[in-house]
């Protein structure tokens, strides 16, 4: 059971890479003010909240940003407003409100004191300026979310606060000033589901790339710490005890010893393995710590500490599918007790 120094470490010939998608549908509950605001959008009504100082905030918040007081005094505000600043976005990105070039805008809706961030659909940057009048374009299908406002659109009226006609095809009233609103609607929304997806290109780094490259040749390799001499399998590039780079690649196994194990009785989703099965820590010969793997080829209730095992590769597999008994006598406890 001794390790074989395979080679001094060479740089990986090329960087391994794979797409990695991190995606979560975040489900978030709403407070009473947020619920009223988002339900209002569904009903094509824009609500703000009045602070104790008398300012009207849109989008409304549950607590006063200045005093931290709980605020609940809802008011209905206009669906038209004035651009306070803007930025022309020539290349819309995934998830943004419009797929064609548009302006990001902060819009102070009539009757409010703080502007709201959204998109403005305009033919080009020359059609956008600070101080221009815009109004809400409602999404055709609304669910109680900020995206119920599809975007804003340019809107020529007279002065802020003048009564204004409704947008074509819509019936909403554009309010002239904030009126108190109960915030009550039928079937209020209680939460939102916010999908979040980020795309990455995963690269494993030098040490893990060397490990993966060796696996492709059905060899398992670790790396030895030049200070404490421990062989890490799989290697991550650093000895966590000494805080220095592992410098020497070492082939380990292929056989090893079960140091400890558990019996899995619950079937995992999307995993085509019959339960019960055994999941074990396996100290490959020459390795300074155990890796984990499934044990097959033996009834689950006969697996034991000290069992000698060997890897089973499947056609096209890039790592051992599982480990099975090698037929050797069990290892003596003293040979693996430091690896538990």
């Amino acid at each position, binding site marked *: 059971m001794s390790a074989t120094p395979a080679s001094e470490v060479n*740089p*990986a010939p090329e*960087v391994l*890479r794979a797409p*990695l998608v*991190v995606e979560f549908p975040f489900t*978030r509950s709403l407070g009473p003010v*947020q619920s009223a605001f*988002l339900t209002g959008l569904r009903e094509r009504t824009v609500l703000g909240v009045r602070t104790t100082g008398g300012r009207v*905030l849109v*989008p409304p*918040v549950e607590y006063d*940003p200045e005093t931290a007081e709980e605020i609940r005094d809802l008011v209905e505000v206009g669906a038209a407003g004035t651009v*306070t*600043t*803007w*930025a*022309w*976005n*020539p290349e819309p*990105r*995934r*998830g*943004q*409100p419009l797929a064609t070039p548009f302006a*990001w*805008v*902060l819009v102070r809706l009539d009757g409010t004191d*703080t*502007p709201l*961030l*959204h*998109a403005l659909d305009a033919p080009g*940057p020359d059609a956008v300026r*600070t101080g221009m009048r815009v109004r809400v374009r409602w999404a055709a299908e609304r669910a109680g*979310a*900020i*995206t119920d406002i599809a975007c804003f659109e340019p809107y020529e009226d007279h002065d802020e606060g003048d009564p204004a006609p409704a947008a074509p095809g819509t019936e909403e009233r554009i309010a002239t000033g904030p009126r108190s609103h109960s915030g009550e609607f039928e079937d209020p929304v209680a939460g*939102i589901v*916010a999908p*979040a997806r*980020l795309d*990455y*290109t*995963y*690269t*494993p*780094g*030098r040490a*893990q790339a060397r490990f993966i490259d060796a696996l492709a040749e059905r060899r398992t390799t670790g790396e030895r710490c030049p200070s404490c001499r421990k062989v890490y399998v799989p290697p*991550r*590039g*650093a*000895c*966590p*005890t*000494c*805080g*220095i*780079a592992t410098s020497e690649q070492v082939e380990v196994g292929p056989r090893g010893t079960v140091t400890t194990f558990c019996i899995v009785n619950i079937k995992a989703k999307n995993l085509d393995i019959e339960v019960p099965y055994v999941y074990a820590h396996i100290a490959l010969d020459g390795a300074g710590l155990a890796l984990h793997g499934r044990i097959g080829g033996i009834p689950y209730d006969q697996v034991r500490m000290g069992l000698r095992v060997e890897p089973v590769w499947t056609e096209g597999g890039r790592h051992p599918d599982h480990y099975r008994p090698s037929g050797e006598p069990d290892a003596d406890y003293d040979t693996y007790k430091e690896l538990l």
Partner: protein
Amino acid sequence: MRDVAIVAFAQTDHVRSSEALSEVEMLMPVLHDVLGRTGLRTGDIGFTCSGSSDYLAGRAFSFTMALDGVGAWPPIAESHVEMDGAWALYEAWVELLTGEADTALVYSYGKSSPGSVRDVLTRQLDPYYLAPLWPDSVALAALQAQALIDAGETDEQALAAIAARSRTDAEDNPHAQLRGPRPQGDYVVRPLRTGDCPPVGDGAAAVVLAAGDRARELCERPAWIRGMDHRIEPHALGVRDLTDSPSARLAAERAGAFERPVDTAELHAPFTSQEVVLRRALRLGDSVRVNASGGALAANPVMAAGLVRIGEAAAAVHRGASHRALAHATSGPCLQQNLVAVLEGEPHVR
């Protein structure tokens, strides 16, 4: 109160992509470098604190793997913030002020290259009203820039001059990603052009802090932290005056920055327009040398760029180029949160 100083600083060369290296492989040489400058070993360090974000590279619990590069055995006293390393430094400074430790190692790292940092940063926004619209970091900075232009605080030409000055200064910074002036290029999100935006890249930085006589033993000319404070503004962009930075001003005031003039400032202004805001809020006159390193416009390893500012300011004190320096770090959209530290080189006089 004890006196605490920055006694060493190290950073990687900041690059567009460190794809051949894992995070710990990128970070570890910097840790060795900074410890080597003091002669300390991990076991000598009283407290270790780091800053990073798993969202950048999409690797869960990457900071625990990064800790492999420290050598955390026997077990060390350690902490982590999901923030720029400047805030990790703040935590370590407080730890040293309490007397719980005499030395601290602070590090941070960021690999933006595996993902799209403009999109990643949208995930820090208000999840109800902002995040569903995916407003990216350049878009939000551009809204702030336009507000400054409308207010008569700057114009595109002045912004281009900030970009050119920063990257010209970076010619003398071997670690910078963009060394030497670049064309301003096209609008990314108008009014911001490519030249107004920071480069996207990977990098890491580390500093060592020490208290009192320990600092004098470890460094010929320690950069004493005379004060440090951080302040945050409301998360709703519409509630803020985007042309001003009351949080930076308040942090500077509480850090003692206005008690005497500084000769040097390192500002964490990833966008040219943000330097305009910060110079005014921090009352920096023309006599102050601003971002001699090139600043975040020359290298912006997210999560490390703020710590790099403090490190660069400290390094200027270490080499005698500054007697009193201001270092600034920011976090969040449009300078939402700001940290200010004041560093001095001369012996402390009470």
